[in-house]
């Protein structure tokens, strides 16, 4: 509908809508608007568009969460809730995710999971991280019945490769980072937090919903670069991470 309007004219109309056209330019445009129906029609369309753009966000500012406000209030001593890192985009169903976030907060950091005590499980996990591609959904079942989902691979600042993963050990659920000891084919978990399946009917929702601020913060603090793409990762797996 705007094909008859030049880029310059359109830009002027747009600035006019925003109250950013001043002086002579404004006067000239207003004179033309009175004489040129196509220009006036485009202005009307732009104003309608403006209203459509704004409508859904009316009142959005009234719902600032108390825990965010509390972060800034004087003399606060608040421990913030974990956000769903990477979860902006899988925000449905929202109410359940909100519950998951509060559960994560309640569970907090737990003791090391049992496989870290040194066991066959540890070797199985290490092997899985050595050989399996990352995935966004679904699980790989280990021989001992635990289930793993490698999520991301990225380079550590110290030169090691590290992987983010979820582990479901039945009674314990771990969201962790393991890094590869160069040459040893061994993946050592260097950081982990517990996560909690949100409810029985939908126990294994997408990984990002469980994603945890602390894991995200750890990656931010230690990663040398962004995560590997699937083809880069596949190549590394094929070359035993060399």
């Amino acid at each position: 509908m705007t094909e008859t309007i030049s880029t310059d004219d359109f830009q002027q109309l747009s600035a006019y809508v925003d109250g950013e056209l001043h002086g002579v330019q404004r006067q000239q445009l207003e004179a033309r608007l009175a004489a040129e129906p196509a220009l006036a029609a485009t202005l009307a369309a732009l104003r309608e568009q403006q209203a459509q753009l704004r409508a859904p966000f009316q009142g959005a500012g009234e719902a600032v969460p108390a825990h965010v406000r509390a972060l800034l209030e004087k003399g606060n001593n608040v421990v913030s809730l974990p956000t769903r890192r990477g979860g902006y985009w899988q925000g449905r169903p929202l109410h359940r995710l909100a519950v998951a976030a509060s559960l994560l907060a309640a569970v907090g950091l737990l003791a090391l999971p049992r496989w870290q005590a040194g066991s066959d499980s540890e070797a199985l996990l290490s092997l899985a991280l050595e050989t399996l591609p990352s995935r966004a959904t679904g699980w790989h079942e280990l021989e001992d019945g635990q289930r793993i989902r490698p999520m991301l691979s990225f380079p550590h600042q110290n030169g090691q490769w590290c992987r983010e993963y979820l582990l479901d050990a039945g009674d314990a659920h771990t969201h962790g980072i393991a890094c590869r000891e160069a040459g040893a084919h061994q993946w050592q978990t260097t950081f982990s937090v517990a996560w909690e399946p949100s409810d029985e009917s939908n126990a294994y929702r997408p990984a990002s919903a469980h994603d945890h601020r602390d894991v995200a913060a750890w990656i931010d603090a230690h990663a040398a670069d962004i995560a590997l793409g699937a083809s880069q990762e596949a190549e590394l797996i094929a070359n035993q991470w060399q």
Partner: protein
Amino acid sequence: MPSLSEQQRADLLDELAPLRRFCLSLTGAAADADDLLQVTVERVLDKGMPADADARKWAYRVCKNAWIDELRSREVRQRYPQQAAGDEEAEAPSAEDSAVGERALEAVSRALDRLPDEQRLALTLVAVEGKSYAEAAEILEVPVGTIMSRIARARRHLLDNRSLQRAVER
């Protein structure tokens, strides 16, 4: 970098409401907006800001950067083949989940999703947030003329594709 002055902290508190609206216009969902807002405030508190910085503008810039970071991280995640199916599933809201207001929000957000990021940011800051071109230029760290042309291109794109109209009428 120094931590926040009392004035900056107070300014930021005052700015939380519009900042949350900005978050909502970028993410398109309330819970996501709350997360982005929280990440923004935490980053500001964690990293501080220069003593002479205007907290109101600084926070928008931090918020914009946090959102871009998430977009990039999403791109990386989407390169994994298994992601595609899961994502579509997650993006299709069920009828029960969406009240009418939420559907309008999702529809407008989908239209905005089709804009290049830099156009969307400029348009949102000015058209939704009511920032002046000068303020938006400062937040996005580009010249005023660039803001003007990005906004015009974004608006033209939305009009020519009727994506907003279709979104609202649906």
